[in-house]
């Protein structure tokens, strides 16, 4: 065997040894679920629901925390308290969905109706930070270190999904992106898709520039580190990005519908308006006091 062959064998054997084999266990599926229904739906949710920033992400994280069963009643009570803090913003968000639905159905979104709702939503979201401090402290005291670790993973995951869909390239046609989904939902023609993409690029780019993603990212990071620690006091969290996240997400959503509406047929507008009305009915905070 020549030297090159023996070198290749050594390298190949080393690589083979290091590659992971399949995990032993029961059922095997073909591919990892990069993009399944649950993933698509959480993206759709984060495109349309903006009422509490990090607190909203934490309340959603509690849906799938899988904490010890004995803690479930207490965790559900805390989740209810967090939703209660977001209830005023949730009501404003519902008004926004309905105003946008009316505008889409009529053929033009009325900015004079939407602007005051956006302002109210931002103000209500700004109050979530202080309101939720007590519940967040109770949550920290309730969870084990492993459960706090899971909550932090989920908070960061919700932030990543939110940022992916609300800070995407305006008018982009990436798989799973808003325009791609809209094309499927409304059976848009190629010409409609081209014109909408160009219009979104123009209308959304200014809003995107205003959003300070680094500030929000830093807040998620510092909150996560604080919550994972053994001692925690939510009142010490000086950053309040709830209004920033809510205002950016809601404004971007409103601009999206305002921009696409003129390019749609009456039938397409009727379908899209109904989608918005469905979103207005999907309000976990609506039942909170």
């Amino acid at each position, binding site marked *: 065997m020549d*030297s090159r062959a023996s070198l290749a064998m050594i*390298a190949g054997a080393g690589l083979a*040894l290091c590659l992971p084999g399949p*995990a032993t266990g029961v059922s*095997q599926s073909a591919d990892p679920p990069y993009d399944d229904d*649950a993933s698509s739906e959480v993206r759709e949710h984060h495109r349309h629901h903006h009422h509490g920033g990090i607190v909203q992400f934490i309340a959603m994280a509690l849906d799938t925390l899988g904490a010890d069963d004995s803690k479930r009643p207490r965790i559900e009570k805390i989740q209810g308290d967090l939703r209660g803090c977001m209830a005023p913003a949730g009501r404003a968000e519902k008004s926004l969905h309905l105003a946008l639905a009316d505008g889409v159905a009529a053929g033009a979104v009325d900015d004079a109706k939407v602007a005051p709702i956006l302002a109210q939503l931002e103000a209500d979201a700004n109050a979530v930070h202080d309101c939720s401090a007590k519940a967040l402290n109770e949550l920290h005291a309730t969870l084990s270190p*492993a459960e706090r670790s*899971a909550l932090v993973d*989920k908070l960061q995951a919700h932030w990543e999904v939110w940022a992916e869909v609300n800070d995407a390239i305006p008018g982009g046609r990436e798989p799973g992106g808003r325009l791609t989904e809209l094309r499927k939902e409304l059976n848009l023609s190629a010409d409609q898709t081209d014109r909408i993409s160009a219009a979104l690029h123009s209308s959304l780019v200014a809003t995107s520039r205003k959003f300070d993603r680094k500030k929000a990212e830093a807040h998620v990071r510092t909150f996560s580190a604080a919550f994972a620690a053994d001692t925690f006091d939510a009142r010490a969290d000086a950053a309040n990005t709830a209004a920033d996240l809510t205002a950016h997400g809601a404004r971007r959503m409103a601009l999206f519908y305002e921009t696409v509406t003129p390019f749609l047929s009456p039938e397409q507008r009727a379908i899209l308006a109904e989608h918005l009305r469905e979103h207005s009915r999907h309000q976990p905070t609506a039942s909170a006091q």
Partner: protein
Amino acid sequence: MTRTFLTMVKGVLCVAAIAGCVATVSGPGMDVDVYPPAAFIATATPAYYEGRPVYWWGNRWYYRDGAAWRAYREEPPYLRDYRAHRPPERKFYGRAHEGGYHRG
């Protein structure tokens, strides 16, 4: 001279290969480049094992270790049993599942 050099290179490669494998698979898990995406972590209920949340994704159990993700090379018996009795759960935020909205 050339033969000596090649012998040295082979020796270094052997040591590097073994050291690399030890670093990768020692301990309970191995470092991975591919790990569960954010949308999965946001919607999946973890199990808890060895004091940490673990996620069943793509036929493996994954967990976060600081900034990195790791996976169990072999499925621990506890988790295999857990999965047999409690299938991994996902949260669906759409209308079809809880009276919310649906996508077209």
